[in-house]
C-alpha cells in the first residue's frame, strides 16, 4: 500500500472539493473493496477522502412514491429496511445473498455499485490485465475463466461485475444521483451507469472523475413476485456463478436481470418481453450474443435453468 494523505469531510460539497484539490484522490466509505485492492497496489490513491460522516445513510420516500436511498447506507441496513423488504424484496434478497454479515455491515450502497471485478488476473499484478493496466492485454482470455463473463465481453476484457445488489437495482430501474466538483447534480439510470468493457475496460462506469454518488432512487413499487436467485458452488460467502433477479406479475409478464455473466448487471428489455413465454425464450434473448470460453460455457444452460426455477418459484 502506497502512503497517502487522509482527511475527513462532513458534507458532499467538501467531499467533491477535497477530491478535486488532490489529483490521485479517492473517496473512501466502507473501504471493503478499496482497501483490499490498495493492499495489493491495484488501487494506489495518494489521498483518501473519508466520507463516512456525510449523513447520507438514510432512506426516505420520494414525491413520486419511490424511495431515495442514501449513498452511505450500509448493505445490512438497506436489506433490513421495512419498506425495502415489503416493496422491493428482490433488492433485500440480493443484498443478503452477497458477501458476509461482517462485510454487509460496512459496505455501502454506493460502494457496492462501484465494486470492481473479482477476475483473478485483475487481482494478480504479475500478469497482464487491460483493466488494471490499459493496453497490457487480457490474461483471462486464454487463462482460467470459469467465473468470468459470457455476454457483452470484448477482446480486451471478459471480467464480470461481482455485485448482487446492482442486479436487483437493474431489475428495479434504479437511478443513481451524483454531485460533481462544480456542485452540478445529475441522475443516471442504472442501465446507463455501468459500461461494457469494449476497448476501455478500465473505465467501468459513466461517472466523471471526482463525481460523488449521493443517493440511489427506486421508482414506486412495481409489485409482483420478486425473486433473487444466486447460484454458487459454496453455499454462502461466495461470488455468483450466475444470478437471476426477477419480478414476475400475476399475468406472467415481468422483468429479469442477470449477474455473474457480464461486465455490468445484464438486462435486455427484449428478454422481459419473452418472459411470459418461458425461460428458454427469455434466456435466448438475454444470451443472444454470448461468447463463452470453454471454462464458462456451462453458464449458458445454467442461466436458462435458473430462470426456469425462478419462474416456477414466482408463480407458485
Amino acid at each position, binding site marked *: *500500500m502506497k502512503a497517502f*494523505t487522509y482527511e475527513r*469531510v462532513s458534507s458532499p460539497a467538501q467531499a467533491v472539493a477535497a477530491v478535486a484539490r488532490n489529483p490521485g484522490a479517492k473517496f473512501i466509505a*466502507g473501504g471493503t473493496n478499496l482497501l483490499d485492492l490498495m493492499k495489493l497496489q491495484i488501487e494506489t490513491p*495518494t489521498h*483518501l477522502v473519508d466520507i463516512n460522516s456525510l449523513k447520507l445513510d438514510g432512506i426516505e420516500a420520494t414525491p413520486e412514491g419511490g424511495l431515495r436511498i442514501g449513498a452511505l447506507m450500509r448493505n445490512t441496513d438497506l436489506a433490513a429496511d421495512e419498506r425495502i423488504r415489503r416493496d422491493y424484496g428482490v433488492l433485500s434478497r440480493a443484498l*443478503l445473498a452477497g458477501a458476509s454479515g461482517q462485510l454487509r455491515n460496512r459496505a455501502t450502497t454506493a460502494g457496492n455499485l462501484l465494486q470492481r471485478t473479482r477476475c483473478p488476473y485483475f487481482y494478480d499484478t504479475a500478469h497482464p490485465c487491460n483493466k488494471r493496466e490499459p493496453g497490457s492485454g487480457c490474461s483471462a482470455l486464454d487463462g482460467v475463466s470459469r467465473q468470468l463473463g459470457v455476454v457483452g465481453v470484448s477482446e480486451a476484457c471478459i471480467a464480470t461485475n461481482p455485485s448482487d445488489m446492482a442486479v436487483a437495482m437493474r431489475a428495479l430501474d434504479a437511478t443513481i444521483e451524483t454531485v460533481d466538483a462544480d456542485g452540478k447534480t445529475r441522475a443516471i439510470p442504472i442501465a446507463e451507469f455501468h459500461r461494457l468493457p469494449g476497448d476501455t475496460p478500465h473505465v467501468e*462506469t459513466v461517472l*466523471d*472523475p471526482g463525481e460523488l454518488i449521493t443517493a440511489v432512487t427506486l421508482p414506486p413499487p412495481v409489485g409482483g413476485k420478486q425473486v433473487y436467485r444466486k447460484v454458487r458452488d459454496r453455499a454462502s460467502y461466495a461470488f455468483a456463478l450466475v444470478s437471476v433477479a426477477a419480478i414476475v406479475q400475476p399475468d406472467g409478464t415481468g422483468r429479469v436481470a442477470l449477474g455473474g455473466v457480464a461486465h455490468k448487471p445484464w438486462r435486455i428489455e427484449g428478454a422481459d418481453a419473452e418472459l411470459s413465454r418461458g425461460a428458454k425464450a427469455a434466456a435466448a434473448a438475454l444470451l443472444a450474443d454470448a461468447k463463452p470460453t470453454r471454462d464458462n460455457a456451462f453458464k449458458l444452460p445454467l442461466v436458462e435453468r435458473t430462470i426456469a426455477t425462478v419462474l416456477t418459484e414466482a408463480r407458485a
Partner: protein
Amino acid sequence: MVGSDDLNLNRRDLMVGAGACAAMPAMPGTAKAQPGPDGNPVEFQVSLTVNGKSHTRNVDTRTTLLDLLRENLHLTGTKKGCDHGQCGACTVIVDGRRINSCLTLAVMQEGSSVTTIEGLGQPDNLHPMQAAFIKHDGYQCGYCTPGQICSSVAMLEEIKAGIPSHVTADLLAPVQPTETEMRERMSGNICRCGAYSNIVEAITEVVERQG
C-alpha cells in the same frame, strides 16, 4: 467512490494547493493530513475506545484497525488470517456491529467503540459464548476462534434486531434463531479445522440459555 480510473483522474488538470486542507482547520481530522504523498508515511491522530479503554495514537494512515489492535495495542486476540476480508478471523465488534477489522483503516475509527475478544471475557471470567465454545469443543487450532466468538455474539444481536438473512424464508416475518439461520449468518467466519458442527451447538446453547 471515485467514478473512474487513476489514469483519467491523473489527466485532470487539477492544482494541489498546499493550503487547501488547512483551509478547513475547524474540521476534526483534517489538520494533520498534510505531508504530500512522497512515499513517506503519513501520520494521523486517532482516538477510539477499545474494550472500554480510551486510546489516542498517531498512526500511519495505512494502518488497519486490525494492525492497530495487534501491533500497536498488543491486543493479539484478534487474528490476521487473510488480511483481505476473506476469512473473518479479524472480526471485532465496532459500535455494536461485527466487522472485518482488516478492511477498515484505524484512522477511520475516530470515536468508535471497539470490542475485541479480550473485552468479551478473560480466562478466569469467561463470556457465556466463550464457555459454550469450550464445552462444545467449538474450535481446534484456535486461530479463527476469537473471530467466531465475536461474530456469534454480534450475530445473535442481529437476529434480535430483526435483521433478515439469505435463508430467512419470509422477509416480513420475525427472524428466528434457527440452526439454518446461524449457519448462514456465521458463514463469513471460516474454520479450516472444520469445527462448524460444534460451533453451531455452542451458539445454540447460548441462545437457549438466554431464552
